[in-house]
């Protein structure tokens, strides 16, 4: 049963910040509410004040700049991203991820900002944004700060957001040339939360012969979306072959810090991390080389 609360509708980010400042620890922000309302129904969250930013127009945008990269306003819905031409042209992997995120109904009303702030380690955006080296712009009445997405979540359903602070914008840098990104999750039911997710970005040299730079991010492999840095290290400057793929999968599995639950044991999650990482590295590597070779 949802506990009663005082409802406040913010029409601008300005108003939202004022309200946040006013109610501090005694309030919660609702946007799409696809996750929050469930928590409220279960009585896990019972704010005295609810600040609705769903209608904040100045946070509903998707812009792209060849230098700056992509900027997504916090209240932009998943669907808007999924259908955006500029996203399609410059970050097609993002569309792939969105299409496999929950149901159309959820994507129609749910927002990216809300998804990140929920801090669920099974959430796809946080993991993919980590691969894409994205960052988030946070603001409170006092200050504004921008931090990497990979530092945003600090534990299960916990983020760095402080009292009076809210997420304004998601920023993704331009994807470097000769770089391919692959992302996938393992689940029994399509579009369901991933039992494990892996995202990989590989940048190859001009000749497409070695991997110059790589980023590997894992979802549901730890209490928060995580980078598999040691595994990345193995790839840098190397030509990727099956032996290396096995080593990278192994390494990522070692780095992972999975938690057992009814859906999978810790061991099985490590197995999945291993397999998924391998597959995503191979996929990204092949695509990146194709780009280098000018082929598709």
């Amino acid at each position: 049963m949802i506990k009663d609360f005082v409802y406040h509708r913010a029409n601008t980010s300005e108003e939202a910040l004022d309200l946040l400042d006013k109610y501090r620890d005694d309030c919660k922000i609702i946007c799409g509410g696809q996750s929050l309302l469930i928590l409220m129904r279960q009585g896990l969250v019972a704010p005295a004040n609810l600040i609705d930013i769903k209608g904040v127009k100045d946070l509903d945008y998707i812009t792209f700049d060849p230098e700056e990269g992509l900027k997504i306003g916090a209240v932009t819905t998943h669907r808007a991203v999924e259908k955006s031409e500029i996203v399609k042209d410059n970050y097609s992997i993002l569309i792939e991820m969105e299409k496999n995120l929950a149901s159309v109904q959820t994507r129609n009303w749910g927002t990216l900002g809300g998804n990140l702030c929920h801090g669920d380690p099974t959430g796809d955006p946080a993991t993919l944004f980590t691969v894409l080296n994205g960052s988030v712009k946070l603001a409170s009445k006092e200050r504004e700060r921008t931090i990497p997405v990979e530092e945003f979540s600090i534990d299960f359903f916990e983020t760095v957001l402080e009292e009076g602070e809210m997420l304004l914008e998601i920023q993704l840098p331009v994807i470097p040339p000769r770089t391919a990104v692959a992302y996938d999750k393992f689940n029994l039911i399509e579009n369901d939360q991933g039992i494990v997710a892996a995202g990989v970005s590989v940048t190859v040299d001009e000749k497409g012969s070695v991997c110059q730079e790589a980023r590997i991010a894992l979802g549901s492999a730890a209490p928060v979306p995580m980078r598999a840095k040691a595994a990345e290290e193995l790839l840098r400057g190397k030509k990727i072959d099956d032996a290396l793929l096995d080593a990278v999968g192994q390494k990522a599995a070692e780095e992972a810090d999975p938690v057992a639950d009814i859906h999978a044991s810790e061991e099985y999650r490590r197995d999945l991390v291993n397999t998924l990482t391998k597959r995503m590295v191979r996929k990204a590597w092949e695509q990146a080389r194709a780009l280098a070779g000018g082929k598709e």
Partner: protein
Amino acid sequence: MAGMRRQPMSKKYHVINTPVHNVDGIAKVTGRAEYTFDVVLPHMLYGKILRSPYPHARILNIDTSKAESLSGVRGVVTGKDTLGVKQGIWRRYKELCDEEILAREKVRYIGEPVAAVAAVDEDTAEEALDYIEVEYESLPAVFVPLDAIKEGAPLLHEQAERNINVTRHIEWGDVDEGFKQSDFIREDWFRCSSQAHVCMETHCAVASYTPDGKLTVYTSSQSHYYIKVLLADVLGLRENDIRVISRYTGGGFGSKFELDSAQFCSSVLSMKFCKPVKIVLTREEEFMATKRRTPMFYYLRTGVKKDGQFVAKESRVFTEGGAYTAMGATALYLTGFFQAFPYDWPNYRFDGYRVYTNTPPTSAMRGFGAPQATFCAETQIDIIAKELGIDRIDIRRKNGMYAGYEVPGQAWIQSCGLDECLDKVDEWIKGKGDLPANNGIGIAAYGFMSGGIFNWFDTPYAFSSAVVQVNIDGKVDLFIGSQDMGQGSNTTLTMICAEELGVNVQDIRLHMGDTDKCPVDLGAWGSRETLMQGNAVKMAAAEVKKQILEFAAAKMSPNIVYDLDIKDGWIHLIARPERGLAFNDVVKEAIRGRDGQPLVARGHYTPHRKGMISPAYSFGVQAIEVDVDPETGKITLKDCVTAHDCGQVINPLGVQGQLEGAIAMAAGYGFTEDLPMDEGKILNPNLVDYKLLRTTEMPETTVVEVETYEPEGPFGAKEAGEGLTNPTAGALGNAVFDAVGVSINELPITPEKVLEAIREKDKPETNKED
């Protein structure tokens, strides 16, 4: 008026086996169908149920004063406000009536009701639950049958020594001799998991007691008759002081023909406060505190000849009963019976034990013990076939049941299309050619009953009854006691009536779902409706038809050698169909002729001398194609065919729907659905963590109808819905076996288990383990 008319269609049936719109269809696609979930009565209160957080505890004291003083709360009831009747659906056996619903002394599972609140709205009622103070004395609990049966294990019910609830023995032939004659003997242990029904409409009821001593209960049920009688027992009312209503039931699958906490608590509250009380279980309550599929621990010992001839089978099962008997006793018998299906076992022995445990009671669920049995049996048969190097179709054909076969001392098979089903599936498989690596096809053969013969409920009524009334305008009223929970019986039975009476489906007005207006039927369970209620409807329609034809014959006064029939609203001489009268005209005059009294007739059906189980059995064979990912163990369903003998198909659209629905549900049982527990607490009581198949997991489905004629069924029809749940888990497991060579003996077949088994197999030397 008499005269010429277009030739009535010459084909055998004018309604049966033609696609007909569901008679409730328009109401359902326009959102007009009123379910119990939608019922709102004036001055209605809302109820909520307080449930035990302990798997096993003594109730020392319940203090409701704080809750009652809450504003908006009308009142609270506990076991003290009830007659304390221990009820159960196996009414013939006192010791099996063991559930109070509102516990007075002891709670035996997490989620057992201990109190119920009525308030002005749901939120207030829910809030009030926190203010009811229950003092418990926690008792040692036991959760697994094999522990519960041990000496010194905590006892759930004083009278049940070693927690043994029911035992079952089935035996024929000389099993021990049979094993002596066997060339090859195989032993296996299997574990079948539980499963939740997950009806989209959760259990709910609106009870309204009035000062004249009458109780009306709107409820989502599969058998209004059972609910009415069970309520009378526990409330101390007379059967007919209770009226149970609702035309629409949002899914049943076996979960809605026993008395549930929503029905009981809303009734008790309503009787106390003389106001309507509505209780709708939350999805979480539905998972934690309603009944579920029976988990089974199976042991199978099977002896065969070199050539695959079945010789002897010994099977033993311990079923996890949960805290109460429920329908579990029937599931125990049926799993033993169907363990031998659909084959001719010369020597067979079954010993089954249902054991009480401190978990939510297990009971009836679509297939009723047969899906578990079929999974174990079919899995083992494929292993045996492989070890003997015999084709899996051949070994089944060699041993399959056939029309005229008698299951010794148990049942007679009058119609059986198993062989043809095997041929059809064989063709389908051959048509697939070579499969890609890690793809495989698995098959399973199955059979099921068409309504149970047993009367543990101890009903004094006919198993099924129907009334048909023909009115002055030719419109027909059909009154039936059976319940349509989605399976489509309303349409099937209307079609049977239309066919028999020679009118069109649109001419019939169906009345059901109201115990005040409709005759008794035992309800929609055990695949009864088509055969049993169908026979009753056919009998009533035939009787009315006779009355009409008598009048028509008198009117037409044909040569006595001619006889009459009605088809498509046209009463005619069978030999000369163009000579006849319009149905409506004859009816009008006939009714005028009988002083304005409509033409009415009753029909009924009760099986006599039909064996121990059922009057008739459906058969079939299913094949499933899967793709297994050897690196993750993930199973993808690709394609599926089912060759199915349900006798004469009445409603093709209905049969296909039943089949596809059964596949989705049974495949879920096979590889995604489970109810893991920790100390008796279900860990995934929600639709996020309980994984049902969705549109994207459902494979293509092909149905091949193999028509036989069942002498016992209306127009030769038999069961076509529940039995379809039996083969899928087994076929799925066998497909994995075929794809990657590992056989999983434990449901559900999760990717984790598959991956583990693959690794086990790939180890240098695997030492086989049972």
